């Protein structure tokens, strides 16, 4: 029997927590489903159960914002379910069904007239020679290990990437004791004009973020952490583990500049070139998508009220297009208010006033982000960092050369997938499908935005057969049973 609620929120990061809280405040019966054992998503990841924070005041601004969000949620009657993985969502028109598999091995179905999908994002997979070696971690993975697990990933760490986050991560890790031997930033050193533009678009809302940015640059300078502007990772060296990194200059489009390689002695490389939204669930339910390279590729089209093309399915936060925590929190609220108004729980006039206020905040955040993105946008040369021998599908160990061999005249990545097994592994194409699509585009002279998507079907996360199979199947009729003769 499906568990019926007024609203199901999928994902317990900033967007989901914010949405669930606002919806419950408006009187809706809400269930918040979170895959992990704790809430907070990636940016507000909480310490492991059993760890205790002794001095919360010294944990930094992010921690304070996270605690405020979590406290606000705690006083509502939102039914919070951690260890609950959503593997499928179905549109039954007047309601949506949500398929859940729990860490205790239970199979459940939730049902509600409206759902808010807040599934967040994950680090952009950037293939380069040696990227599969132990010792190469995503910036997010490294941050998790150091900030949350309190373990350093290595003794000599090279940070490679682009944008304010890689700078912030580097300083945070260094502050926590990591030996950061260098920060390799693909964009050129921001010139005076760019700095003025950033400052001008910052506004009051974002003044804090701008101040943070400047203090991180001061931190790097004061601690003499080598900063390599206009450089990128060329390859990771080592047989079974990272023993070194080769970096090189890149031009304005991030294409490698020949003859500029230099080797750095490191045992760990943290890679941070942005994020991709987790749009798998939205794709399976048939949401209309649009292509935006800067926001992470294919993202759902949404109304200003965060509703996708499937009525009753809302999408908020980084899972719909990477835009950061402040935007995610506002988007969660907008969607919740919209659902509350539609269901009649909140008078439309009151909802309108509040949504207008949230939209104003949202616009201010977007303006600053647009200026930041202009400086640090992903440039197409990043796709030239892979060679023929570079593994593209990590799970199934398929190289770029093998993929290109099978592209042939087909314009369809599903065809390439069938022939090479690329995107058939456990990560379900999260770490390779964009790069496979790019290779198809390149080989067939298409624009990456025109390349067909991979067919998306549930389960959106790997689940055991027991999650879907009926544990008590009906008996097989005797005339269909095989006889023993």
């Amino acid at each position: 029997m499906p568990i019926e609620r007024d609203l199901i929120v999928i994902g317990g990061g900033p967007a989901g927590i914010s949405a669930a809280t606002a919806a419950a405040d408006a009187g809706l019966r809400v269930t918040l489903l979170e895959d992990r054992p704790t809430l907070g998503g990636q940016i507000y990841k909480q310490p492991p159960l059993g760890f205790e924070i002794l001095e919360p005041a010294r944990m930094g601004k992010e921690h304070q914002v996270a605690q405020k969000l979590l406290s606000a949620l705690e006083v509502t009657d939102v039914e919070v379910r951690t260890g609950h993985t959503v593997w499928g969502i179905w549109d039954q028109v007047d309601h949506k069904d949500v398929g859940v598999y729990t860490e205790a091995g239970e199979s459940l179905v939730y049902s509600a007239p409206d759902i808010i999908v807040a599934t967040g994002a994950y680090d952009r997979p950037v293939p380069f020679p040696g990227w599969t070696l132990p010792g190469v971690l995503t910036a997010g993975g490294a941050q998790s290990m150091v900030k949350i697990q309190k373990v350093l990933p290595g003794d000599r760490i090279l940070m490679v990437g682009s944008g304010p986050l890689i700078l912030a991560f580097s300083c945070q890790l260094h502050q926590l004791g990591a030996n950061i031997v260098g920060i390799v930033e693909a964009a050129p050193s921001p010139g005076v004009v760019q700095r003025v533009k950033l400052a001008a678009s910052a506004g009051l809302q974002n003044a804090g973020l701008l101040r943070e940015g400047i203090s991180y640059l001061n931190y790097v300078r004061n601690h003499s952490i080598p900063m390599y502007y206009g450089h990128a990772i060329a390859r990771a060296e080592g047989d079974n583990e990272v023993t070194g990194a080769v970096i090189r200059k890149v031009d304005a489009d991030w294409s490698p500049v020949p003859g500029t390689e230099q080797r750095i002695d490191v045992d760990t490389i943290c890679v941070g070139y942005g994020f991709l939204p987790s749009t798998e669930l939205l794709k399976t339910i048939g949401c209309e998508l649009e292509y935006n390279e800067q926001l992470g590729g294919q993202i759902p089209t949404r109304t200003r009220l965060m509703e996708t093309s499937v009525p009753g399915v809302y999408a908020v936060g980084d899972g719909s297009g990477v835009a950061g925590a402040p935007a995610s929190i506002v988007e969660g609220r907008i969607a919740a208010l919209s659902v509350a108004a539609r269901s009649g729980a909140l008078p439309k006039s009151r909802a309108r006033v509040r949504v207008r206020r949230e939209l104003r905040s949202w616009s201010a955040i977007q303006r600053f982000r647009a200026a930041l993105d202009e400086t640090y946008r992903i440039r197409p040369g990043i796709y030239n960092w892979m060679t023929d021998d570079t593994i593209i599908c990590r799970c199934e160990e398929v190289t770029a050369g093998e993929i290109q061999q099978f592209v042939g005249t087909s314009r369809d990545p599903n065809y390439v997938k069938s022939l090479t097994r690329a995107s058939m592994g456990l990560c379900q194409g999260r770490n390779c499908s964009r790069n496979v699509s790019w290779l198809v585009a390149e080989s067939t002279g298409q624009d990456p935005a025109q390349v067909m998507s991979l067919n998306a079907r549930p389960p959106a996360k790997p689940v055991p057969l027991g999650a879907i199979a009926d544990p008590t199947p009906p008996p097989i009729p005797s005339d269909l049973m095989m006889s023993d003769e």
Partner: protein
Amino acid sequence: MVKRGAKVSFTIDGQRADAFAGETVAAALFANRHRILRYTSRSSMARGVYCGMGVCFDCLVEVNGRPNIRACMTPVTSDMAVCTQVGPSDPVSPVPTWGAEDAD
């Protein structure tokens, strides 16, 4: 600033090692300087922790006899036996995607 859980003992490929209750197997392995978690089926490539958040499925290890356990998503427990996974999983045994709380 952060007080860890209780100290526990576990094994890495049969050797005793220390960990803190509640931390991930990945963290416990890294703290013990053990970063090669498995060798792949097709080309025996060494793999370890990549995404750290449970989506890449690279950090697979054998835990208490069960293969394909994501080290970054599994909390360490007392006397847990963690082994380097070599090649494909045993096709007969189930493929859990969570921790191994229910493994004996």
